[in-house]
């Protein structure tokens, strides 16, 4: 890993690649987009962020950066000084799920080290001194835990965490104390939304202490029918037991979504086929289109591909389009800052290029 912040070629490398978790190769990936675990950790010899001076924050940042992130145990890391980034680059990392909105929007010394395959990221000076996050494609929580547990141990061999025998890992917010662990599974549930069963499902999840959030976490709308299910409790239950609680409920949700899809296929096949085809048609031909409309339509198309109603598209392409059509991604791909109107036009061009590919006259001639 480099000593200097990678805002040059290695940062741009992120623009052209696609995270492993988006490849749609994991278990149940027609419905489960990703499994994510994050651990909140603090250094024992510094105040929590709220009481840190600028000097403290800089000392924490350089300590973690120099001492830990050069660890041989950790894979090839791309180091980014978040404070030095342009707004569009910070937004890009948020859209990519590599940093939180909180890290993007806060002030002072802060950074992120990103595994070059985008499987994990290490955020420094977020709400806690260190947030370790790991993402896997599909429903794969056991492997996610094995990997993140090993990363946590590797880091802990070099730093002293704030830990108390009775309360566990001590965190800035008492809602994270104990394991400091948040387990989230991101699901694509369009059929439950169409059949208006989604609220009922979520009310029952809340009763068993699970939280439901949108694509970009707390407070975000459930754009594109994506929902994150995660544990609320972090204290008094082991990591494995917290993972089991989430892992046990996901197959039930998958089953509900599959049943709702079957219902739509059997009871209103024409309506469903029409909805999916129109969505695909708009995405392939629109001249200007907003991010919200794109997410909404891509959601229908994604379900259509999974149900065999569209046969010339792959799920990884669609997963990637959900992320690459977000405002900052479009601007990075385009290579210039764009206002809303220009972004909407650029988004339409990008969609036509990636979705209409099989139908381009030159390609048709070749076939």
């Amino acid at each position: 890993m480099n000593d200097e912040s990678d805002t040059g070629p290695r940062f741009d490398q992120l623009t052209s690649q696609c995270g492993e978790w988006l490849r749609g190769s994991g278990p149940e990936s027609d419905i489960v987009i990703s499994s994510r675990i994050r651990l909140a950790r603090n250094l024992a010899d510094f105040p929590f962020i709220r009481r840190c001076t600028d000097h403290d924050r800089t000392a924490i940042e350089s300590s973690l950066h120099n001492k830990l992130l050069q660890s041989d145990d950790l894979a090839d890391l791309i180091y980014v000084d978040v404070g030095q980034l342009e707004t569009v680059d910070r937004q890009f990392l948020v859209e990519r799920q590599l940093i939180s909105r909180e890290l993007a929007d806060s002030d002072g010394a802060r950074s992120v080290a990103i595994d070059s395959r985008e499987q994990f990221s290490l955020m420094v000076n977020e709400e806690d001194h260190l947030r370790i996050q790991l993402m896997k494609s599909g429903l794969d929580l056991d492997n996610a835990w094995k990997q993140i547990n090993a990363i946590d141990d590797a880091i802990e061999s070099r730093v002293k965490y704030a830990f108390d025998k009775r309360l566990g890992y001590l965190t800035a917010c008492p809602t994270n104390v104990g394991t400091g662990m948040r387990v989230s599974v991101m699901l694509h549930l369009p059929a439950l939304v169409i059949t208006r069963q989604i609220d009922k499902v979520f009310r029952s999840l809340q009763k068993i202490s699970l939280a439901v959030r949108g694509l970009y976490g707390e407070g975000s709308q459930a754009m594109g029918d994506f929902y994150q299910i995660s544990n609320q409790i972090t204290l008094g239950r082991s990591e494995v037991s917290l993972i089991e609680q989430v892992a046990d409920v996901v197959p039930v949700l998958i089953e509900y979504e599959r049943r709702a899809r079957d219902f739509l296929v059997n009871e209103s096949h024409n309506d469903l086929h029409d909805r999916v085809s129109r969505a695909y048609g708009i995405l392939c031909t629109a001249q200007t289109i907003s991010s919200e409309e794109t997410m909404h339509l891509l959601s229908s198309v994604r379900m259509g591909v999974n149900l065999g109603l569209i046969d010339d598209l792959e799920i990884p392409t669609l997963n990637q389009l959900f992320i690459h059509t977000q405002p900052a991604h479009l601007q990075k791909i385009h290579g210039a800052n764009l206002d809303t109107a220009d972004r909407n036009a650029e988004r339409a061009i990008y969609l036509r290029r990636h979705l209409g590919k099989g139908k381009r006259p030159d390609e048709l001639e070749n076939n």
Partner: protein
Amino acid sequence: MKCQNCEKPATFHITELTEEEPSELHLCEDHAREYLSTTEAFESEAPPSLAGAFAQQLKVGQTAEELARLDQQSCPVCGITFYEFRNHGRLGCPHDYIAFASELEPLLLNIHGETEHEGKQPIHHAPDEADGLELIRLRREMREAIESEEYEKASELRDLIRNIEGGQTPEN
């Protein structure tokens, strides 16, 4: 103004926004407590957020005077007041869990349903935080000494800090 349910003075003025038209309620402490406890139980069985847990704690036990006294308490290590924590929802240092233990315990119980950790522990470093807390405290005292232009005291503190930092596990 009297409570709309009894003769006591109304000290709680609640605007209810869940109906189609906003409605005003003027209640004494007892009736307010009763009203709030029934509506919340009806609305949701979701586990509480930090703000919700605070609100609930206030309702079940503390009076305004008790809360005001609590708010003045501060952590001897980082200096954060309970008021600051309550307002921003973030603690100031690891020692706050001890400094505010009696206030945090019911809060933790409310949020997690438990008050004791189960699960992994650090394997390389023994969970002994004395040095860490000492460093946090000394660095704060040094900063305060500089701010009040007590440079001699500040330099003594700096030496103490360096001693402790030097005695910690060597970097590798």
